[in-house]
């Protein structure tokens, strides 16, 4: 299948190029960049030095089977007609088609310029939307913080444990979440070693979380010193505190057949709970929990690589589902150990 990537000079765009070019069913034929047009993809992404491909301008897109768009919010809604014309399947990584209604965009973003296409957009997480994804032709890949949160809380939502519960989500993310641009705050001297509240309140991912889980959460995100990775710690105070057995059952029911969600909790050794470096480079979401009986609290941990399960990997996974390909195709990498701060 002929596959293109818009925004290929960016971080998620580069990750898509990596995944698509190693995918057994995909051929990477187009990778766009305005800034680096005509340069080799490897000149920007050193891991793709072996790729025999140069960036082209996004105005020069040709017919494709699949088009991944990894541009800032707003770009896809502006070009959606054109993109859907060019490609049978458009997978967008921005927030442009994640929410179900124009009203939600008005509330959380700056309005929507292509509202007619909103109903076609399917939220990409196969763990929640596997059936709607089959045959979809406009897919909206989720936000990375939202993905970590949704996957962590989904079992509790399904088991009714979130009904009436107070839920706080405290997220820690790496610097790649900011994309390849980056101003003073993301320069190495300022960004190294931080535990920096960057979205104390009002994070727009709350909209997706609420939509997907049906629960309102208090959400705060912190930048920490890693490049890849997002970790969500969800503090849940249920109306009725469940037992550990109930929790295991809820998590296992939800995920035992999921190829990309692993339960990690209570194990011995160094890696007892989900943590982002254990999933770096992979499409896994590791989720786990602990019961705090004293305080009537369930603590859920969820860890993903924001470049993978949090964006490019999720997008390819959803495309696989939509196209009826083996779900795990192109997403087999299991990660590294030891690994520092990937």
């Amino acid at each position, binding site marked *: 299948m002929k596959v293109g990537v818009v925004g290929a000079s960016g971080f998620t765009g580069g990750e898509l190029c990596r995944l698509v070019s190693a995918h057994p069913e995909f051929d990477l034929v187009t990778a766009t960049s305005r800034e680096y047009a005509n340069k080799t993809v490897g000149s920007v992404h050193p891991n793709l030095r072996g790729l025999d491909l140069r960036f082209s301008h996004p105005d020069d897109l040709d017919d494709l089977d699949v088009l991944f768009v990894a541009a800032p919010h707003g770009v896809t809604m502006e070009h959606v007609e054109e993109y859907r014309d060019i490609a049978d399947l458009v997978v967008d990584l921005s927030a442009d088609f994640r929410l179900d209604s124009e009203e939600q965009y008005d509330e959380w973003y700056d309005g929507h310029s292509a509202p007619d296409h909103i109903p076609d957009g399917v939220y990409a997480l196969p763990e929640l939307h596997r059936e709607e994804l089959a045959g979809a032709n406009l897919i909206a890949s989720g936000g990375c913080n939202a993905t970590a949160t949704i996957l962590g809380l989904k079992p509790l939502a399904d088991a009714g444990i979130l009904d009436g519960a107070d839920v706080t989500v405290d997220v820690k993310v790496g610097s790649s979440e900011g994309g390849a641009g980056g101003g003073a705050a993301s320069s190495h001297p300022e960004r190294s070693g931080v535990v920096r509240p960057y979205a104390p309140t009002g994070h727009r991912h709350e909209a997706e979380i609420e939509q997907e889980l049906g629960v309102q959460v208090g959400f705060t995100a912190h930048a920490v010193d890693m490049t890849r990775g997002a970790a969500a710690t969800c503090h849940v105070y249920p109306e009725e505190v469940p037992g550990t057995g109930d929790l*295991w059952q809820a998590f*296992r029911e939800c995920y035992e057949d999921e190829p990309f969600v692993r*339960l990690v*909790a*209570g*194990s*011995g050794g160094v890696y007892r709970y989900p943590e982002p470096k254990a999933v770096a480079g992979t499409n896994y979401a590791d989720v786990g929990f602990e019961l705090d009986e004293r305080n009537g609290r369930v603590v859920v941990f969820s860890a993903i690589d924001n470049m993978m399960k949090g964006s490019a990997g999720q997008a390819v996974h959803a495309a696989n589902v939509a196209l009826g390909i083996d779900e795990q195709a192109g997403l087999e990498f299991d990660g590294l150990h030891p690994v520092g701060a990937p």
Partner: protein
Amino acid sequence: MTECVECGAEVSLHEDLEVGEIVDCDTCGQELEVVDTEPPVLDRAPELDEDWGE
């Protein structure tokens, strides 16, 4: 096949199991102590906490 006392998943056990041996559950990772062998019975192994200054 024996159930993990932590998560309820089945734990695959090797043959010449001995009482006192520690195995880990491959679902939840819980360390389990073999408290009996015929039939195998597993219990939570005593935990060794990381030492964190406070």
